């Protein structure tokens, strides 16, 4: 879906303002919360390359996020790697995991892709919590995941680490903007819009889908690493199916198929969670109801509000 220029600018302003908040309110909870939002947003914009742009509903993205997080945790904690090389490696591991899953998953299309990614990711979850205990620490997970040391700045300070996350997020966002606007990004949209026609024009549809999935895996790998580093901890919880569900909810709430929609969706999700969980322990169910309502009444999410009128109610992005 396309948002208008004005809409995109407005969304950009909102995201920009959100990023600036912790610079104003230093030393408080703001840095932690917005950092969490930005890390999840990185995950979500990667997810949306597969979901919103290429049109494949992956239910297995938890496996990609988790494998990146575990890669960083294992390399730094058990093997003494530096943070930055480990972060790069985590991106590769996320991509490699995505490639591994895609070998099976892109063979089937449509709804089967969702079923299959869900099942395969569940397998990774089971493996990490049982058979690979030696590597992953089983259900206990790995504690003491470090933060980077850069230019002698103390990144264990939340405000400083926040700056690091903002930088990584902006690089990720910029690369994704370029990717989406490039011929490659367009070809993914073409595959989504009409798979048969795209193949008939000479596009290798399976290869394109696989490429999108692998890139998405790299994003998830980086996001998983930053998440583990943000909370100093990783457990199989990061591989749990509900993580795949959360990123889906965020993306739909924000607006799939747009660059900034998923970012807004993450922000709304996290803020709703913060607010609702103060009043009730059953906040997740309320979020579910919000999600159902959004699916019916706001198919293009928040970004849909910024779209030309004629595109609004269609549930576009086939």
């Amino acid at each position, binding site marked *: 879906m396309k948002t208008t220029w004005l809409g995109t600018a407005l969304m950009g302003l909102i995201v920009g303002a959100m990023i600036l908040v912790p610079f104003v309110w230093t030393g408080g909870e703001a840095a932690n919360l917005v950092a969490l939002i930005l890390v999840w947003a990185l995950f979500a914009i990667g997810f949306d390359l597969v979901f919103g742009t290429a049109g494949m509903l992956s239910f297995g993205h938890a496996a990609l996020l988790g494998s990146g997080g575990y890669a960083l945790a294992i390399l730094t904690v058990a093997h003494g790697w530096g943070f930055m090389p480990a972060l790069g490696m985590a991106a590769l591991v996320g991509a490699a995991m995505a490639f591994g899953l895609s070998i099976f998953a892109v063979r089937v299309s449509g709804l089967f892709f969702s079923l299959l990614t869900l099942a395969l990711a569940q397998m990774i979850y089971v493996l990490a919590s049982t058979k690979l205990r030696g590597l992953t620490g089983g259900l206990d997970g790995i504690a003491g995941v470090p933060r980077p040391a850069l230019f002698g700045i103390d990144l264990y300070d939340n405000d400083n680490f926040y700056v690091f996350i903002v930088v990584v997020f902006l690089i990720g966002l910029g690369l994704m903007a370029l990717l989406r*606007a490039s011929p490659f990004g367009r070809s993914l949209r073409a595959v989504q819009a009409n798979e048969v026609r795209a193949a*008939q024009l000479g596009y290798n549809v399976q290869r394109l889908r696989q490429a999108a999935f692998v890139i998405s895996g790299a994003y998830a790998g980086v996001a998983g690493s930053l998440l583990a580093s943000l909370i100093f901890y990783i457990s199989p919880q990061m591989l749990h199916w509900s993580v795949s569900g959360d990123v889906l909810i965020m993306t739909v709430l924000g607006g799939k198929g747009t660059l900034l929609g998923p970012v807004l969706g993450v922000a709304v999700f996290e803020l709703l969670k913060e607010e609702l969980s103060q009043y009730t322990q059953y906040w997740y169910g309320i979020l579910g109801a919000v999600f159902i309502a959004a699916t019916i009444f706001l198919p293009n999410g928040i970004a849909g509000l910024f779209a030309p009128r004629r595109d609004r109610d269609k549930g576009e992005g086939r």
Partner: protein
Amino acid sequence: MTGGLLRCENIHVAYGAFKALSGITHEFRPGHVYGLIGPNGAGKTTLMNALSGHVPVAQGRAFLDDRDVTGLSIHARTRAGLGRSFQITKIFAGMTVLENLEIAAFAHRYRVQPFWLPAGRFLKVREAAERVLEQVGLTRLAHRPAEYLSHGDQRALEVGLTLLGEPRVLLLDEPLAGVGNEQLERAIGLIQRIVTGRTVLLIEHNMDVVMRISHEILVMVQGQILATGSPEQVRNNPAVRSAYLGEEP
């Protein structure tokens, strides 16, 4: 454009127990237009599907300029020089007409799609798309979302998408289907222009058009070629008249 020799050798296609094609053998010579006619269910579209790779061939081979394309995937056949348009319009909804054509141009020019520059920076591609835009007469609608085009204009876009692959062999499946009377002449003119110099297989219910632009007619009945010949010969063939036109011999 050179080459474009398409050979079918004993092609069989089956849907379960139903034999959609049984033993199609024919040579389609470069630069000639072949009209496929026959009653519904005769296997005309199935033959196109078999040639473009949309349905698997149970038996037999297809050669494009002596290259065996039988086992190739759809996109590989397109890259080998085979283009096709569909009976049911297949365009990219949610994109403008020009974007639709650019998608086709990128597919033709790059094996690996560039990811390092915005699509708008590829001026050669833009030019190629604009050339075809003019050729199919849609210049004034370039920035209209494709799904809002009239049916006739969508058919023209469909043909344009196919043209950008610079196919040597062109499979046109009812290019005039659903085109209104007021746009018919324009559409016929377009088809006449694009078939020149190409090997074309044409399925079309408008007999005037088929007879006017085909060099050779293939009459298909029940998955087989019943008769071939020039439009004149076919028109006067008693077997064709009885089988196809339902006349008493």
